[in-house]
């Protein structure tokens, strides 16, 4: 059984069709990259997977590890193991990073029938992951994303992923706004999360992240449709020729 199965997904926003029939199958252990220009529907796909409510799903099905994802609330999807690394992480004033993350972890543990983790057990885990992402421990007690630089926010997303250990991680333009050092660190964090039990869907505009995280599959999204699928070499081809060539090629999905 696939970890993620999207069948004929059609999505409207304000009566405007954004996704026009997406089919995608992702198995455990695989990393898929969704590439496409601005406005192609990449972020919409990511948000729909995370069950954001502003989208109107007009047709199609999504199965997460055999369960009907479209019947889930956002928090249920999260507890079932879906994680979205946000393109624009939000700030939560007055709530410390550590408290927030432990609350999230415990909400998920509780859903799965596990004991809640207390602050003493949580601390070493948190420290270990901070180290992985080369983040300052001081960030623990700062409010969630408040006063963080763009790069720190993105690292914080990966930190959360590392602690919540999702089955399926959807990374929405995690590389945008990162300088080369931050990109390397973020990529290292993501690479460390690769496992035969976990799948990732990496949504990105540029190929550069894929130099660090080599995907198993690359899909090109244009105007709400996957127009081409292939291996990592497709990303390089895109980098060279640009998205415009794909439009004319418009081959049937592999």
């Amino acid at each position: 059984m696939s970890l993620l199965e999207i069948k004929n997904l059609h999505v409207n926003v304000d009566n405007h069709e954004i996704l026009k029939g997406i089919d995608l199958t992702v198995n455990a252990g695989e990393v898929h990259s969704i590439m496409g220009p601005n406005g192609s529907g990449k972020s919409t796909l990511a948000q729909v997977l995370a069950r954001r409510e502003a989208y109107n799903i007009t047709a199609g099905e999504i199965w997460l590890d055999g369960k009907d994802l479209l019947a889930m609330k956002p928090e249920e999807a999260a507890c079932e193991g879906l994680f979205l690394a946000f393109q624009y992480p939000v700030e939560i004033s007055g709530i410390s990073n550590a408290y927030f993350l432990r609350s999230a972890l415990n909400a998920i543990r509780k859903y799965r029938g596990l004991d809640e983790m207390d602050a003493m057990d949580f601390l070493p885990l948190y420290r270990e992951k901070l180290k992985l992402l080369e983040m300052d421990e001081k960030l623990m007690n700062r409010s969630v994303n408040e006063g963080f630089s763009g790069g720190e926010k993105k690292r914080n997303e990966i930190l959360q992923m590392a602690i919540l250990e999702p089955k399926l991680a959807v990374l929405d333009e995690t590389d945008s706004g990162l300088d080369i050092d931050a990109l390397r660190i973020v990529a290292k964090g993501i690479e460390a999360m690769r496992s035969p039990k976990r799948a990732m869907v990496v949504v990105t505009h540029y190929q550069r992240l894929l130099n660090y995280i080599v995907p198993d599959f690359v899909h090109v999204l244009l105007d709400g449709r996957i127009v081409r699928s292939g291996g990592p070499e497709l990303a390089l081809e895109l980098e060279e020729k640009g998205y415009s060539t794909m439009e004319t090629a418009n081959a049937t999905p592999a």
Partner: protein
Amino acid sequence: MSTNVDTIRDLAEREYKWGFVTDVEEERVPKGLNEDTIRLISAKKQEPEFMLEWRLRAYRHWALLEKADAEPKWANIKYPPIDYQNIAYYSAPKQKPGLNSLDELDPEILRTYEKLGIPLAEQKMLAGVAVDAVFDSVSVATTFKGKLAELGIIFCSFSEAVQKHPELVKKYLGSVVPYTDNFFASLNAAVFTDGSFVYVPKGVRCPMELSTYFRINAAETGQFERTLIIADEGASVSYLEGCTAPIRDENQLHAAVVELIALDNAQIKYSTVQNWYPGDKQGKGGIYNFVTKRGKCLGVNSKISWTQVETGSAITWKYPSCILQGENSVGEFYSVALTNNYQQADTGTKMIHIGKNTRSTIVSKGISAGHGQNTYRGQVKILKGATGARNYTQCDSLLIGEKCGAHTFPYIEVKNSTAQMEHEASTSKIGEDQLFYLRQRGLTAEDAVSMIVNGFCKRVFRELPMEFAVEAQKLLSVSLEGSVG
């Protein structure tokens, strides 16, 4: 969006869990208010002559105000006229006179406090909290009295203070809030039936939190309690106040007065968690919480700090204030006021700077949800002699949903050019982005809202004593329900 709205609407169905009625035999005077009522109350309490005189003067003043229709109308609140003759001004659980120990207390009342989570019995006490409990109009038990007495601290019901420490009462009663202060303060002065009294002698730091728990039980009664706290030179005390009431369809009036006096180098910290019955979802019933609270920093280097978490009551009208008379004295006001459904709150503070180098801090967090209307009203006044005075005000409003309102009325009056004033204000809405972010991490919509609100209030919660802070956070979550949408 719909799932969010539905989830949160579901939460609104939760009930006010403190809304039960205790079945005890009550002794009450007939409804209505005239000089005879005052005399009756005073006689029941076997008060000395000076108290009766004071009450009568207050009553006469109030009667004039009432005739002149001088009930304050400036607040941003709406309610039908109150019929002051249709209220019973004294209601007390019947009990043997002169209670010597908790064992003699009506077991029904004890059970009530247990239900409320107020452990009256000393063995169940949270270590370090002494409780005075006011049930309707009468103070029913004061715990830890003996332990405090060893340090010379007086912590007792107001009635007892009148009997045992009349000189202190006479000296300080009305010295901060005179009976002429305002309509509700006059009414309180005339008819107040009990409350708490604290005196901390020179140089003594009160080793435990002192606490009063107010409970309105009887129907068609008002609760008019009066609290007087005096910290003598170099003394310090932290005082907590909590309140609940049964669910009733009629509105009930609660008009309390609190006076604090801090002498040289003394500190008083006064914390309130107010959770009177707020009325139902349509706005029916609930307590009118019309309260006058004021502290006077009489001595040099003295400090008075108010912290309030106001989640209950149909209407809150309350401005805990500081008169900063002593040089270098400090006044603080930290407030969280939440209005949900049809609740209205007009609350804030006054900081009156009289002495040199006086400093004040105001941090107000207003949360409006449902059809709630939340008003911050504050006055900072720097008088001519207050050279080097400073004030910092931060006033934030958080809106949840489309139908609520937040209003801010800051008044600043400066008569000394050396004053430094800072005022910050913000209004924000709980964003769908924030909610989605938290839910994507596994938190329910309910927990997400409550986390955002708790974060918003953090600056104030930090000022609350530990046990209270936890309680306040829980209360906020419960009171918040029915919010986004």
